């Protein structure tokens, strides 16, 4: 063991000696969900600078989870044990966030996820786990009601069975859709698939009035493109997993109307949003997607909690402060005093037309 330490002591032993407040960030910077990670990180950086201007500094340690839950698991352990972070922000895909929260729970470190919407997360993650976005119970209802209001009653849900986000959201859509008199059939695929010909055919055979997508944009976008006119212009409704600037590119030309629910739309009429959108576009050269807005807000929420907390390095105290948050950010009001530390927020419906365009607001469940 001594020899080992000598040899490998060349590798810097982080976290030894200094004990200032450190924030761990885990995001999918590469891999399937890369755009989510990049946008979130951009939002975080903008927030970091804004906070610096107010005199608040944070030491952010970013780890890439490569859109793989197993990597997220390992990186969480690395952040907690090697880097000694006191709180973790991340990740985006619920499959990864679940593992992050479980590891952090055993280590007693608070976690705030900016964008993971699966219902069971904060429950499984324990009292130190929270999120600043709405959850899928709400999102499912938003999507189902949107379809029902448009008069679409016969639907098919296309579900990614390898992702807990997808199956959870689909279940929530089904509950509300069927309660509202709709019928929902389900088709499955797996993330990483490329050949969707048969799924597409199965969906077409059902002759639906609306197609729900509860998965992520890399497969959804490609599937829509591969479908061509097999689906004869049936409207497509996706969840926030679709919110990515890559989606319109992947989809290509299509006659179908594509809608998705999300946390934030850069061209929404709210002045706070407009201001943020302008500054983001100036710095990063493109309008912000939902992930950017959430990335910005999560750091602001953390800053707000740290301000209220006497000793942020004490995980229990920090956790309590986070759970008492009531903060209005650019993605809306984040009130984490709810029993499952999940805020009730408005959703926006976005349509895909050339790019992502704001369609309407769906107010939070009361």
């Amino acid at each position: 063991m001594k020899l080992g330490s000598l040899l490998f002591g060349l590798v810097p032993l982080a976290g030894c000696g200094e004990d200032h407040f450190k924030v761990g960030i885990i995001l999918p910077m590469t891999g399937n969900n890369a755009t989510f990670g990049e946008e979130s990180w951009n939002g975080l950086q903008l927030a970091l600078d804004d906070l610096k201007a107010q005199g608040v500094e944070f030491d952010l340690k970013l780890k890439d989870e490569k859109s793989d839950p197993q990597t997220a698991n390992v990186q969480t352990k690395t952040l907690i044990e090697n880097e000694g972070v006191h709180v973790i922000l991340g990740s985006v895909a619920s499959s990864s966030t679940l593992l992050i929260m479980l590891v952090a729970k055993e280590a007693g470190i608070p976690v705030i996820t900016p964008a993971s919407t699966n219902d069971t997360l904060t429950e499984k993650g324990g009292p130190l786990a929270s999120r600043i976005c709405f959850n899928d119970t709400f999102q499912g209802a938003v999507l189902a009601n949107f379809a029902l209001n448009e008069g679409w009653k016969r639907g098919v849900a296309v579900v990614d069975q390898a992702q807990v986000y997808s199956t959870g959201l689909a279940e929530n859509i089904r509950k509300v859709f069927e309660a509202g008199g709709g019928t929902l059939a389900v088709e499955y695929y797996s993330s990483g698939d490329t050949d969707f010909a048969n799924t597409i055919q199965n969906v077409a055979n059902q002759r639906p009035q609306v197609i729900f997508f509860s998965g992520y944009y890399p497969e959804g976008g490609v599937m829509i493109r591969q479908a061509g006119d097999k689906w004869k212009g049936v409207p497509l409704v996706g969840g926030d997993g679709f919110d990515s600037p890559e989606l319109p590119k992947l989809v290509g030309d299509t006659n179908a109307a594509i809608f998705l629910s999300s946390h934030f739309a850069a061209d929404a009429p709210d002045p706070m949003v407009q201001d943020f959108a302008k500054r983001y576009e100036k710095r990063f050269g493109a309008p912000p997607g939902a992930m950017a807005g959430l990335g910005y807000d999560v750091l602001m929420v953390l800053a707000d909690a740290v301000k209220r907390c006497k000793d942020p390095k004490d995980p229990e105290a920090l956790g309590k402060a986070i759970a008492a948050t009531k903060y209005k950010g650019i993605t809306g009001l984040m009130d984490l005093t709810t029993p499952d530390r999940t805020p009730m927020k408005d959703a926006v419906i976005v349509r895909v037309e050339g790019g992502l365009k704001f369609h309407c607001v769906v107010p939070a469940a009361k």
Partner: protein
Amino acid sequence: MSSELLFWLNLLVGVGIYTLLAASLNLINGSAGMFHLGHHGFWALGAYGATWMTLQGGSLSGPVVYVSSLIFAMAIAALGGLSIGIPCLRLRGDYLAIATLGFGEIVRIAVQNSPHDFLGGSLGIQVPRVLMKVTPKTLVAFRVLTLSIVAVACAAAIVTFRNYLRSMPGRRLLAVAQDETAAGLLGINPTRSKVLAFVMGSAVAGLAGGLYAHYMGGINPLNFNFMEMVKIFLIIVLGGMGSLSGCAVGAFLVVATEQLLNRAPEAIASWWQVLFPLILAIMIIFRPQGIFGRREIRDVWRSWRRRTA
């Protein structure tokens, strides 16, 4: 420093588990000469078997559930070994490799597609902590406990394999591996030897799976992918395909390198994925016998002493 200790404990547990996997693969590949690329399937079977058993545990006491889940894991994995070993007996070399690879992938796909309420399917499943409660304060104790259990398991496995290889059935296996037809002429039943090797190897891999599941607290079918298989292969090639001590040394080298690189900045760490197959390729081209060849540490020690005496 507490987190440094945690890191090394984690590393050593990893070394232990991979030693078990390497030793069991060694039995099938090195000693029995069967080219097997599906070991990750047995590992997965063991992990999921142990998980299922643990979930049935209910109100039984912790250690009882723990031990019975490990036994169940070994049984399930052994069954897997039986079911793939028997049909593939007639296959040689490349064909056996591909068939076993297919088996490993089928296991993974099967778990990934299984209904979410059965074994978690693609979402993974949590393994309840039955030995002790794991909290920030008890984390070190938990790792030390697991490490002791894993160490005992490794020692038991290595001793068992070593004694087996020295016994009559073991010698029969080595004979079959050398030349199956000749062995047959000597009255040895090659089928029985090979199947036995497969079953023993898969059972130990299953044990590793059970220990892994309990240690990680949660498993996911993606944990048992083909890259892991290649990693285990690297370990036995590095250590020497007939050497048990080689497995332990190889496991330490590979796991330690991987974990330490993980602490390095991203730019360096990401080269590991290119590096380790490169190392394996170089080893197999220039030094296929690995570090120890077919010898054990004792032999190396003795010959070194003789030279310097």
